[in-house]
């Protein structure tokens, strides 16, 4: 039972409550740094580190932090993790850090992270909070990667810098420019909502069939 519950918290972030596709949170990094798959993954990993670290601390100290100053405490915790991620990336992968630029420090302002602290980590035990953070971060990573991969393939004819098509491929430059982010995100959201709609319709059909079966 206990195990199932934390597993549930992990899974919901990836699909049902996906931070990007279902909650539409964290749009700023989502649109800005997804012009290549590598950047998207680096951003996703940095966000995961910050989210899991902050959720762990916030949940552990949830009974110590007075509610009047909780937001300031959350921000201090988040900002510390962001600074750690910032310097670590700068030291280990300067090339990626240069590409992500100002968007690493801006993780502090990612409403996804503060939102999870306020809505979940500050109310639930550490284990569940960490699972929830991991799930949300994985969902965010999946979303960033799908956007980054689509944009890199169409806009540059490559994935992870490896050319996929021959020389005759004319890259769709617009896909790696800012408008490409909006276009791709719009199409993905359309697909996600269509899928949800179809699923609800299917469940309704099943329920109706069961009811009429019971009646008859």
């Amino acid at each position, binding site marked *: 039972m206990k195990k199932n519950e934390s597993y549930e918290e992990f899974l919901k972030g990836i699909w049902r409550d996906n931070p990007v596709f279902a909650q539409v949170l964290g749009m700023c990094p989502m649109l800005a740094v997804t012009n290549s798959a590598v950047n998207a993954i680096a951003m996703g990993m940095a966000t995961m580190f910050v989210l899991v670290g902050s959720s762990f601390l916030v949940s552990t100290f949830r009974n110590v932090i007075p509610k009047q100053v909780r937001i300031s*405490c959350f921000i201090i915790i988040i900002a*510390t993790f962001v600074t750690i991620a910032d310097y670590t990336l700068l030291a280990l992968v*300067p090339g990626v850090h240069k590409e992500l630029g100002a968007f690493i420090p801006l993780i502090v302002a990612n409403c996804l992270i503060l939102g999870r602290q306020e809505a979940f980590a500050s109310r639930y035990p550490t284990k569940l909070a960490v699972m929830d953070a991991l799930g949300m971060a994985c969902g965010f990573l999946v979303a960033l990667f799908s956007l980054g991969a689509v944009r890199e393939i169409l806009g540059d004819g490559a994935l992870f810098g490896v050319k996929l098509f021959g020389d005759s491929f004319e890259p769709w430059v617009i896909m790696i420019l800012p408008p490409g982010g909006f276009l791709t995100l719009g199409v993905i959201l359309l697909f996600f909502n269509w899928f949800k709609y179809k699923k609800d319709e299917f469940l309704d059909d099943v329920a109706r069939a069961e009811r009429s079966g019971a009646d008859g």
Partner: protein
Amino acid sequence: MSPDTSKLNAQPSALRLVLTLAVAGLISGVAIIGIYESTLPTITANKARELREAVFKVLPGVTRMQALVSRDGDLVVVSEPDKDEPVVYGGYDDTGDFVGYAMPGAGPGFQDTIALLYGYKPEEGLVVGMEILESRETPGLGDKIFKDEEFVAEFDALSVRPEIVSVKKGAGTAPNEVDSITGATISSKAVVRIINETHAAWAERLPPAGKEPAIVEPETGGTGAGP
């Protein structure tokens, strides 16, 4: 599993609020100092390596370099240039003979500041190489200033006398003319303008050809002649 509301509704004293924030800030500060101190050597080494690689790239044949600054009308060798002090890098070959200067320059491009480094041989008055260090030019168009090999190759032997001129693609014939990139005219003109401006700014401060400061061996101390 339901949220514990009794604790949330209690009124803590002001002292407790202040103390909580103070402790949180203190711990956070210590953590940040720790990570800063532990990554600083790697970050500095990365930056120095990037600069060395760029210098060696824009000055073919160079194997050693040193930073030079202009003080009291003289070009002096420094190991650690002051922040915000304009600096050029002297490039030397294996035997310690002066090859040329690597000159950093920066200026507005199409979207944001373009920072570049170019190799300059004062004796011939030639630019012998150019490398873009920083740019946020439009991907696919403006970023050709460093992705288009033909354009970069334009700077392999470019006369700065009287100054570099950017012309339409295919029209460049004179040794001081650069073919602009089609679709990135503003970015290519910006590169030319930055080099011209940097050259003009340093023209008075560089010593006459043949009187460049000799290489200072690292063993003998790098601070060189102070004022």
